[in-house]
């Protein structure tokens, strides 16, 4: 297109004008790429590099090869954290069916339903710090409402967050609260877009209740389910705030997860072990990488399909 333009041959048009279409995207991308490379990409590389060193964050770093990773193998706290991460992954996914359930419950047109929908959703807007505080008070052995309610039935008191076996589940339950709200809103939006003709066709075929839900509704909710899955997995692996606020890793370090343990090792008051912390972060990153690869692959298929 530029070659037929007479101004090009006379050289009046600048180099930029001639290459506008090719150059412009890079000019537009430059600030975002620079920021992103500086604060995200480069640090990922650095973290991987640091994981091969013993470093207190101040003095000289000493190369230890796979030393940090070997040490991880025998680290009981690391093992506990890894198991807890697995529990988080598994139980956090309950947010998806729970969100679908509430969405189905609220997908009506009665008066005031909009207010109900917003009020059901709004725990998601609270910061995890506030959610953590709210739930740790809810669980308090004496003052907490949970034990107040259990007391009505002659049960309890239970000290959820003080019990090494139950504390992690108590924290996950707190995390499920906003996460379910998020999944609910995804499904409410999805339900709004379900094809009425298919429902009608299903009704004509005598599909009712569960059958209708399973064979006609859920397949149409696939995009919502995919997003719910992505955000829930990421949320589960990122869990840090709730643990830090509710138990600080205790009791006896039984509620640690990788992200929390890494923070503890790298920046604890017992001395900084940056290299060891970085090694834990790399393990977490590798776990996440499996999911990232899957997400990207799904998105890529979607793109090809267009």
């Amino acid at each position: 297109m530029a070659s037929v333009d007479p101004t090009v041959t006379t050289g009046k048009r600048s180099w930029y004008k001639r290459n506008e279409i090719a150059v412009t995207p890079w000019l537009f991308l430059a600030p975002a790429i620079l920021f992103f490379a500086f604060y995200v990409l480069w640090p990922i590389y650095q973290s991987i590099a640091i994981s091969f060193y013993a470093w207190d964050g101040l003095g000289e770093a000493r190369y230890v090869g796979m030393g940090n990773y070997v040490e991880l193998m025998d680290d009981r706290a690391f093992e506990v954290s890894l198991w807890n991460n697995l529990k988080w992954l598994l139980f956090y996914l309950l947010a998806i069916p729970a969100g679908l359930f509430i969405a189905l419950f609220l997908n009506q047109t009665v008066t005031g339903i909009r207010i109900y929908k917003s009020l059901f959703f709004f725990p998601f807007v609270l910061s995890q710090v506030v959610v953590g505080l709210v739930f740790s008070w809810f669980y308090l052995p004496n003052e907490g409402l949970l034990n107040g309610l259990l007391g009505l039935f002659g049960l309890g008191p239970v000290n959820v967050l003080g019990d090494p076996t139950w504390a992690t589940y108590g924290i996950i339950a707190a995390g499920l609260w906003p996460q379910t709200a998020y999944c609910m809103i995804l499904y409410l939006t999805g339900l709004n877009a379900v094809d009425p003709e298919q429902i009608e066709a299903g009704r004509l075929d005598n599909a009712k209740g569960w059958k209708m839900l399973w064979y006609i509704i859920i397949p149409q909710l696939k995009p919502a389910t995919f997003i719910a899955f992505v955000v829930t997995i990421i949320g589960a692996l990122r869990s840090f705030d709730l643990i830090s606020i509710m138990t600080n890793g205790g009791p006896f370090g039984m509620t640690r997860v990788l992200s929390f343990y890494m923070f503890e090792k790298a920046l604890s008051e017992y001395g900084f072990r940056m290299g060891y912390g970085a090694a834990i972060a790399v393990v977490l990153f590798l776990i996440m990488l499996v999911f990232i690869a899957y997400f990207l692959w799904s998105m890529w298929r979607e793109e090809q399909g267009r």
Partner: protein
Amino acid sequence: MLGPEPCGGPFDMFPTPIEKTSRQWQVTYQSLLPLALVMWLLPLIAVAIFSVKPAEDFTQGNYWGVPSSFEMVNNYGQVFFNSDMPRYMLNSFLITVPTVVGAVALSCLAGFALGIYKFKSNIWIFFMFVAGNFVPFQILMVPVRDLTLDMGLYNTKTGLVLFHIAFQTGFCTLFMRNFIRALPYELIEAARVEGIAEWKIFWYVVIPLMKPAIAALSVLIFTFIWNDYFWAVVLTQGPESQPVTAGITSFNAQFRAAYHLMSAGSIVAALPPVLMFFLMQKHFIAGLTLGAVK
């Protein structure tokens, strides 16, 4: 708020519209709704009740009874006038607002580039942003803390803002790019035929169409950044630069076991994003659910 309410025939909705069901179920449903809501918000209601109780109720073990006196003004007054809370709130605003502006600006530019132009590495750069957005924070922690220290920005709001802009750019670019992809491409072509410069197409053609996306993204990022805790702990300390999420732990240490004040404090800390949500609900939901429907 949640898009157009479905209307029309009797059989086009799932589950079956309540008006089409038995009278009995209608009554049950109408009474289940408020009950379910109260149960859902129970932990929060508990905190709200705590926050208006007097201190004596806690020392006397009256945790769940009727407050012996209504101390809302007193408790919240303490939070506002007798603690560092206003300071933390101000810090949160000074961190959140510049981040929103920065991240939205960068991602408008990047989203335009990736959404409009066809070049070889387009999809790879796009995936780089998407992947970076999913990365666990912890792998960035040690190097970013170091970078911030080296630049002399440790324990400053600027240090936090710069990092937040960079990290949020991942998600924002994904969002903007997908939004721009959905715009009618003919508009761009028509403008090019007219010989309009590319940056003018961006500024005069695309940006006006992106207003809903900008609004949605702004409220989302506002909430995300306001609620950030991890980076606040890693990159700042002390009331001069800490945002409210990190500050609330010092606040709670100051009022140890004073549940009425701690509850009031957390409600205050949670308020700005909650207000933002209720005022901008439509945009908020539109942003969160982008892609949930084909």
